[in-house]
């Protein structure tokens, strides 16, 4: 997809500017480029779905949309081996600690896509007594993907956005991402759970 076709270039440009302002030396920079090329082209999802959006995720893997083209088809069932978590479906109170735990079990660097209205804000169930009003209360979210459920094309778009985001991050001496996560975790304390 050509650069001009993307709708949200200012966001990426802001990230790039931040990077430039911080400065880095050539060797580390080139290593970063190589690593970022690798990880932005190898995004393995965690098999995680609670409701309707999960079925669209299955369609995404099927022959018609075929996410294997981008190398995303290696869906891992174990969070330790996955790169990102597509929170597909409503998260309710009972599921919230489980989801947080899954997020904590993902190996760094890890990303979250909030997929569908329910995950973003609670969607049609926002008024319910048992629904979390947006998963960003529990985990830091990288990409928000609206829809109820989002079409598979939209899912491809969201993962491509994630891939773009990975490309402009620093991995070595990685500051621009880890700090944000650290801030989030400080306000949403990690529990002393026995993994």
């Amino acid at each position: 997809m050509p650069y001009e076709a993307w709708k949200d270039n200012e966001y990426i440009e802001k990230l790039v500017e931040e990077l430039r302002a911080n400065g880095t030396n050539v060797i580390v920079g080139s290593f970063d480029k190589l690593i970022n090329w690798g990880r932005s082209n190898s995004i393995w999802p965690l098999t995680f779905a609670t409701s309707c959006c999960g079925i669209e995720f299955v369609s995404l893997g099927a022959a018609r949309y075929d996410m294997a083209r981008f190398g995303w088809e290696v869906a891992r069932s174990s969070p330790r081996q996955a790169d990102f978590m597509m929170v597909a479906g409503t998260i309710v109170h009972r599921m919230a600690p489980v989801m947080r735990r899954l997020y904590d079990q993902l190996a760094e660097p890890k990303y979250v896509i909030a997929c569908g209205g329910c995950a973003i804000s609670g969607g049609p169930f926002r008024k319910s007594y048992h629904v979390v009003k947006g998963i960003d209360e529990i985990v830091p979210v990288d990409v928000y993907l609206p829809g109820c459920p989002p079409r598979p094309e939209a899912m491809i778009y969201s993962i491509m956005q994630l891939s773009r985001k990975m490309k402009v991050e620093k991995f070595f001496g990685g500051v621009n991402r880890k700090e944000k996560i650290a801030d989030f975790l400080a306000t949403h304390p990690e529990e002393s759970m026995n993994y």
Partner: protein
Amino acid sequence: MANIQDKIAKQFPEATFEDGEILLVNIPDAKWHDLAKFLKEDADLHFDHLITIIGMDWVDKFGCVYQLSSTKYNTQISVKVATEERENPMIHSVSDIWKIATTFEREVYDFFGIIFINNPDMRRLFLSIDWKGYPLRKDYDMSPENNPVPTENERQEDVTYSYVEDENGNVEKKTIAIFQPEDYVVNIGPQHPATHGVLRFRTAVDGETIKKIDFYSGYIHRGIEKLCEGLTYPQTLHFMDRMDYFSGHHYHHALCIAYEKALGIEISRRAQVIRVLMDELARIASHCLFLGTYCMDLGATTMLFYTLRVREQILDIMERTCGARMTFNYGCIGGVMQDLHEDFVKDVKELLAVLPKNIKEYNELFIGNVIAKGRLENIGNLSFEDAISYGVTGPSGRASGWACDVRKTHPYSIYGGLDFDEVVYTEGDSMARTKLRIAEMEQSAKIIEQLIDNIPDGEYCVKVPKVIKLPVGRWFQMVEGCRGAFGVYIESDGGASPVRLKLAPPCLPLANVVDHITQGYKIADLITIGGSLDYIVPDIDR
């Protein structure tokens, strides 16, 4: 109906009756257990299927409405049991008469705090043990401070409680251990590839052999029933797509029929034909996905891609008419949202042309495979009696020999005038459940073939009042969803939103029966059996 009423009145003079579409019997709690036994065991009544238990809060009193049906005579009856007590409401349990009642009563306890005396398992079903209050009570405090989003792991108890009544009528709380101390308990779910969503089985195993399963749900409980109480009638419809997301059309259908019945609206034949066409298309798509994911669970991943091919074709047809791939929101009060797309007939005919070829391929690829036979045959046998007692309807019930297709037993819409067979197998094993779904796809195709050339002209949606207010009363409607009989119960006080809207999903009994039919099998069989029952977790939890 009068006959039934006389019979009950003779035996139970304290019972009072309310007429309606379905006869309703009022019975005091003290006599309820006896009546239940009588209703089930009397040869002329034979109410052996408990469809659902509807917990009620009438502000001045608590109670339950039991929906019963007879598998022999296809009659229905409602029984109302109430208690004046608000602090500590108690009703006698019927879990020894209908096995599914154990779980239904847990659900009522969870929502209303009504304790069932003699029920062996009085835990909450959907909410965590530390949840404050009972959400479906009218005086429930909805404020989020009351029950904040938990950040810590849920507290877990390895015991359950039972309120047992002795001969003198004293009720005593007893503690029962779920697992034995020597059991090796493996936790399967809520995040597990084979539970088809977020269901959790705590499984006690001996080596690889399953000894006992304790099932936990509520990981996607969104409180749809409570939400409906605050919405107008047309607004409640859109939740139907989000319960069993493959049976969206069917569930819409059920609720629409119930509303139209209440409002006395007669809809056009065109609208009825469109609804039936959509129902059957959705059934084929759902069974396709079942077959694919089921084979994937068993390790034959490739099958998924062949079945999804047909499903995508059906989704295309639906998308053209309804405008969405999954949450259609197509049925509405008075008919359907918009008219059929101009290419609809052509597209459906294309589908019908490729379907037999695909079904043949599925049979060759999977059903005929020697490994699949070894994995499925004689695994997870469910007997005829158990199927009824556990309320296992739909394809899973029919595989056990129970002819429970609502389209045949209580025909609705235009199904009475259509020519199709109800497929019934008697083996009751996983293989029968799988084969039956493939056979049902053929029957659905048969229905579509009959209708596709005869879509009558007319309006697709009749005129309905701007503000819809149901008259005072209660209505119950069942339809045959993709996974079994789906029922809706509406109680109205004449206002613009329902007093109580109970959704009786088919998947709760399906998940409930897993413990019963997996005992003694291997862990791998749990996946086989669970997959063949084909429950959808958001449908269980609502």
